[in-house]
């Protein structure tokens, strides 16, 4: 992109409260103490491809730049190798924060267009949800048809190799008791909101509230 772009940020560009929201999610609270040292980017094997470095994503999140963060490639480039989480001198659970951001991006549907990964995530989820299992090559096929069939074409050699070596699945794997799984997921949908509300209330007060690690 060689057109000149304005890069200044005005207060109106912030979605005030976003940072707080994220930091209130169990496991994400330590973001408060980020000192922007860049260790996360320093150890991230994929940071070299990111539009914002993990460190910047942390800063942007904390400063309420919701749109910038949710539209960034960064969160989708995370391969969740947890190197950043393991190395962060402030013990911030960066990988989990990135997960949190991915979830929000998907919920709000504002992830970068024609980006395969969120689609993969969703397709994967759907398949896992419906069949209880995931059959890789079917998933892959689906994915490529949804995103760019051309790429699928580019994969034919690999496909053949897999068939040759007998690593290719010809039918979709399913669990027997799919109803059971569905019931569970339904129940989760039913209860989650009020349970979380209750817990938040129970914790409240002056209490240093519980956190997921």
């Amino acid at each position, binding site marked *: 992109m060689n057109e000149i772009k304005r890069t200044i940020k005005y207060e109106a560009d912030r979605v005030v409260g976003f940072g707080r929201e994220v930091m209130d999610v169990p496991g994400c609270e330590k973001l408060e103490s980020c000192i922007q040292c860049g260790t996360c980017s320093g150890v991230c094997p994929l940071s070299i491809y990111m539009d914002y470095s993990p460190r910047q994503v942390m800063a942007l999140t904390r400063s309420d730049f919701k749109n910038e963060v949710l539209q960034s490639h960064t969160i989708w480039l995370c391969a969740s190798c947890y190197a950043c989480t393991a190395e962060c001198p402030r013990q911030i659970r960066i990988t989990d924060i990135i997960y949190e951001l991915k979830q929000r991006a998907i919920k709000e549907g504002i992830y970068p267009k024609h980006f395969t990964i969120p689609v993969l995530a969703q397709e994967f989820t759907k398949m896992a949800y419906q069949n*209880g299992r995931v059959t890789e090559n079917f998933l892959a096929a689906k994915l490529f048809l949804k995103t760019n069939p051309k790429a699928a074409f580019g994969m034919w050699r690999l496909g053949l190799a897999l068939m040759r070596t007998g690593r290719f699945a010809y039918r979709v794997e399913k*669990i027997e008791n799919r109803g059971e799984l569905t019931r569970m997921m339904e129940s989760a949908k039913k209860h989650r909101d009020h349970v979380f509300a209750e817990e938040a209330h129970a914790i409240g007060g002056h209490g240093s509230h519980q956190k997921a690690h």
Partner: protein
Amino acid sequence: MTKFSYYPGCSLKGSGRAYEESLLPVFKSVGVELDELKDWNCCGATAYMAVDEVDACVMASRNLAIAEKAGHKEVVAPCSACYLVLNKTKHYLHDSPAINKVVNLALQEAGLSYSGNTPVRHPLDIFIHDIGLDAIKAKVKKPLKGLKVAPYYGCQIVRPYSTFDNQYNPTTMDRLLEALGATVLDFPLKTRCCGGSLTGTLPEPGLLCTYILLKEAKKRGADVIATVCPLCQFNLDGYHDKIEARWKEPVRIPTVYFTQLMGLAFGISAQELGLQRNITPMKPLGATAA
């Protein structure tokens, strides 16, 4: 004969079936019986966590509950992603009362329950700490003399929930391979990411990760890379063409499961161990010695 619950995960039934094919006989020969969880379901992997943490926990916890029902106190999860997700779920259930409540309500629907104390363990952990190197040495019939192996652990079994090995410099597989008589190389990238699912979705960055690993292994004179994870194996084995095309550099080097190497050393045939499933095949043992 000690028994463990066995959670294979989707890959070990699919592209990673060679892992299972080698895992079972090897465990058998050291006197461990794995019985597969009845009607287990996908752990949700990293993808599900990206969509919805709570649902992901519900999904994963069904397996833990089934395991608890089965009555063996420990679950073996060979796939790194499964290992991580199941452990992560345990942590969430322990740390977040809310998630715990939701999950248990969900489990009730299925007439299941989970008490929280079912350790999820990786085969490496069990081989080293339960069975022990001496017992393994004793089983070696064909030592892997002169076979130069680059031990590759990947990320998710050492970070962040693993307790059985050092997260900076894991050595369990190193020690195991040495016990098999192999020459274990100092492989500085042993815990560096292989690119994970990116290889499929965003080839450029994904394959770079894989390329770096192959390149370094080759440079250090490895005959073979040993891995513990079906996705790593897939990445390191499946994309040689693409990588060579992209970076104009020969990187062909076979990547096999550490259990396959154990099997070979135990004298099990390559066929039984599913070695024929490698896209870049490993040379038969004798040949490498030269």
